[in-house]
């Protein structure tokens, strides 16, 4: 399925944070979303993931309108996101977070919880450990509470949570920000691997240009709420306007 977002606009009081933003993403494609601070990148992601409700615009996902759905409804449709800052959730282990991520695609009212009560989680744990935690190098800390982990590993846990829901559209909000360069490269590789394995569409907001250039198939540049450029990574680096607004002159 492909994502077609068009005319997405959201205002906070008098500030137009995102202004008639449009973006298409094909399955199996990683689209980078870059731009200066305050450009509206995260706000745009928030509109797509149900955190904010835009004032106007549409985001079609295989014919379904995503705008106006709650985060939980979106997750059931296969739209998952990660967060810029990772919360430390006391008492929850890495595996617990992965299980929470896997749980959101099932609608559990009408007695579903009662069934959980009597069902063993062994098989689920084994499957999550093998398919989600192992590729992110989290197997050794699977039973550790997440607040004992480093920031970089907690970001990997957040990605694991999103992946456990088996997403078809993955929205990544600064996945490598704050990570060491080694962790950042591992994260970028994990994102590419996920795309290869699941064939999902990925939108990645990121500032680290080396990661963006090496990971993304296409790059969209935002400034002051609007898209000012879209193209292949090489074209973005060459564009004079993008250099002036964001990358800086060499």
């Amino acid at each position, binding site marked *: 399925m492909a994502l077609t977002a068009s005319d997405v606009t959201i205002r*906070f009081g008098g*500030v137009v*944070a995102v202004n008639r933003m449009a973006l298409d993403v094909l399955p199996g494609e990683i689209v980078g979303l870059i731009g200066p*601070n*305050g*450009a*509206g*990148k*995260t*706000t745009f992601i*928030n509109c797509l*993931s149900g*955190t904010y409700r835009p004032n106007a615009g549409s985001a079609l996902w295989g014919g379904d309108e995503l705008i106006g759905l*709650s*985060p*939980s409804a*979106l*997750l*059931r449709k296969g739209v*998952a*996101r990660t*967060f*810029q*800052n*990772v*919360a*430390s*959730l*006391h*008492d*929850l282990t890495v595996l*617990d977070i992965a*299980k*929470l*991520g896997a*749980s*959101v695609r099932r609608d*559990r*009212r009408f007695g579903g*919880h009662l069934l*959980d*009560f009597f069902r063993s*989680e062994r098989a689920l744990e084994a499957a999550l450990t093998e398919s989600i935690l192992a590729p992110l190098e989290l197997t050794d800390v699977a039973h550790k*509470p997440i*607040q*004992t982990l480093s920031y970089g590993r907690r970001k990997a846990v957040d990605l694991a*949570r999103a992946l456990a*829901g088996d997403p078809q559209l993955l929205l990544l*909000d*600064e996945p490598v920000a704050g990570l060491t360069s080694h962790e950042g490269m591992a994260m970028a590789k994990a994102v590419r691997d996920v795309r290869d394995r699941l064939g999902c569409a990925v939108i990645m907001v990121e500032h680290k240009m080396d990661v963006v250039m090496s990971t993304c198939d296409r790059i969209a540049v935002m400034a002051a709420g609007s898209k000012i450029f879209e193209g292949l990574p090489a074209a973005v680096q060459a564009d004079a306007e993008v250099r002036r607004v964001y990358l800086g002159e060499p």
Partner: protein
Amino acid sequence: MSARQLAITVGVAVLMGVLGLALGRYAAYLVNAVAIAALGALSLNLIIGYCGQISFAQGALLGVGAYTAGNLSNAGLDGAVAILGGGLLGAAVSALVGLPAMRLRGLYFAIATLAAQAILEYLFKILDPLTNGVSGLVITPPTILGFPMNSDQSLVVPSLVILVLAWLAVSRLMRTDLGRAFLVVRESEIVAKGMGIDVSHAKMQAFLIGGFIAGVAGALAGYANRLASPEAFTLDLSADYIAMIIIGGLGTWPGPLIGAAFVVLLPEAIQRVGEAAGISDILSALRELAFGLLIILFLIFEPRGLTALLSRLRPRGIGAAPHGSVGAPGESGQPQEGGSR
């Protein structure tokens, strides 16, 4: 629940049962009191300690269970059915108490539960045909599955069996998706929403389950006292339960039992010491002061309560207590949304 939790739960219950049945009427009375308080504390620990919804109405919920079970067994039903009825009505009323939590958070919700407690106390006084008003409903000792509950000793087995079942059920619950969702809701509702958790649904489940256990505890309390009266289920009782879960350790596995044992047995001990020394009047007046002081001290120095203190004494001891420290449940984790960019 883990195999070790199962073993500890059954072991502690058997120990309590042996003590209660071997050492005479007074010991049986104390075991019942601790078991009932532990059930109530378990239910409140679920709502406050795990799900993070501060409620001051738990005392009144026990009252709902006591009046319901009392009326049902007075009408001739078996005690087991009556206790179940007390639990179900407790769950229903608890859902009503929890309704404001769909919109209110933290202290604002806590104030709403204060109002619920006051309304329920008032209803206990005026719903005369069901509650017999201020003088209270006299409960004839029932039979539970055919066994007559005509002494403190006879109630020991049913209350401990129910305690074990409820304890294991909550332990199991905390290892399901719903239980994990409670913990995320406690830390931050914003985070929970972003993770796709239906926050209102999770809170409502916590109130339903917590209300059921509280209703069952109240039913047992009614049978233990053979009376359900408005004075027994006041805000004071709600405060006692909050004291239990704070002293025992908020959101810990053994906390409710440890806290309940402490809060029930300490005044009894003070009483005995006072009687022996001939100064019982002064000492019983000190009870409230002692509890207030204890709660403040625990909140400042050890929010994880006695559970954490015990596990610190023996590093590999009551290991069920999760490591790391947690503040009051209202204190949220770092919100994830990065503002508007």
